[in-house]
């Protein structure tokens, strides 16, 4: 029964993936990609990784989908000239190369060592010292906290990169195009109905992440989605990117993370180490600051570079 379910799920995932490559219309391909992200989340559930499933559904499918949809809408009507397609021989060569890479990876999968190496017992054994109950969150916030800190810095750097693409007259201005004045009543209704629920679920994901699947990424992505929804319906206007409180919100998470990490030299015995009695409160304080920064950064990354002049 489950084998049949898995086989059908994999067939659907591969079919939708093929569609996103083969579809003629970019818009249709992007819609396919959103569906693909949601199906992939199901695959992650089947792989006993609910934390990854939540992240894939929220960021891989959801927020990336909105980003690509926005790009496709702006580039509507721009179609590659027929002669821009590579010649048949080159396409054949590309297909052969791709098939070879896929076959090599498939061989690796089939030849993986048995029994598989695992760090699960070690991760579980040290978990009480962090005060957390979710081992994935333990890896993210304690054992491999350095990766998570780097990732937060990457997010902020990507946003600086996006902002630096602004035209001169919009430098430091308001991200995105001015919204059309025509109100889309269904969208406004949804944007009023969903955020109260979404915000509660987002905060719950953050809080529950200590012991259950969830965490700062998933909660932050959901908060960002609610912000984007209200943004698209025209219910909230974005602040100018030169606004001080906005920049403060963006760096609060990584900065606090780094500060507590540096304090680890004094209060514990290493960078990003927590004293055992204080581990859980410190992690929760970091996560609360992170969730705000993640939500703000993800939302602004989707909104794009400033396109309206800053208010005088």
């Amino acid at each position: 029964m489950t084998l049949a379910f898995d086989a059908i799920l994999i067939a659907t995932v591969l079919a939708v993936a093929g569609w996103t490559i083969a579809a003629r219309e970019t818009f249709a391909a992007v819609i396919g990609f959103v569906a693909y992200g949601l199906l992939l989340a199901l695959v992650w559930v089947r792989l006993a990784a609910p934390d990854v499933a939540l992240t894939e559904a929220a960021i891989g499918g959801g927020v990336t989908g909105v980003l690509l949809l926005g790009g496709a809408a702006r580039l509507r009507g721009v179609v590659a000239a027929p002669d821009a397609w590579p010649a048949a021989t080159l396409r054949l060569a590309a297909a052969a190369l791709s098939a070879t890479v896929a076959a090599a990876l498939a061989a690796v999968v089939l030849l993986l060592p048995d029994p598989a190496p695992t760090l699960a017992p070690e991760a579980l054994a040290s978990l009480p010292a962090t005060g957390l109950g979710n081992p994935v969150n333990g890896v993210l916030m304690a054992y491999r906290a350095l990766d998570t800190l780097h990732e937060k810095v990457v997010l902020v750097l990507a946003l600086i990169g996006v902002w630096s693409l602004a035209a001169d007259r919009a430098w430091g201005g308001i991200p995105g195009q001015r919204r059309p004045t025509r109100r889309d009543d269904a969208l406004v209704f949804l944007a009023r109905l969903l955020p109260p629920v979404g915000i509660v679920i987002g905060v719950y994901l953050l809080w529950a992440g200590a012991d259950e699947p969830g965490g700062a990424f998933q909660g932050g992505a959901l908060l960002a989605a609610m912000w984007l929804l209200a943004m698209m319906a025209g219910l909230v206007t974005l602040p100018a990117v030169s606004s001080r409180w906005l920049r403060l919100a963006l760096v609060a998470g990584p900065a606090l993370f780094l500060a507590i990490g540096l304090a680890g030299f004094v209060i514990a015995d290493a960078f990003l180490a927590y004293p055992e009695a204080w581990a859980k409160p410190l992690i929760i304080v970091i996560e609360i600051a992170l969730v705000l920064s993640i939500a703000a950064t993800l939302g602004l990354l989707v909104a794009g570079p400033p396109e309206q002049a800053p208010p005088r």
Partner: protein
Amino acid sequence: MSALFGLAGAALVGLGLYGLIVHPEPLRKILAFNLLGSGVFLLFGVIARRGAAAGMGADPIPQALVITGIVVAFAGSALAVALLLRLHQISGRADLGADSAPPAGNGPT
């Protein structure tokens, strides 16, 4: 069991790589690159699943790496889309053909 998902991940990498090379539209290349990345993540997921031990369904370390990877992949995609839209805004084109002189009087505004 999980090998089936591993094979699917390998196929996704192949599909994404093909789209990345062949598609002339940059937005479709970004999409294909995301497909390729998700295939790699899926391979990680299979390795995590095989590492199930100590009462856990999967090894938490690869899972945490994948979560970090998904977020970084999104940041890269957002930067790529912003670069593409800016290229379109300045030059009126959205392709990666050979560079030509930009039309006069249509520089950065």
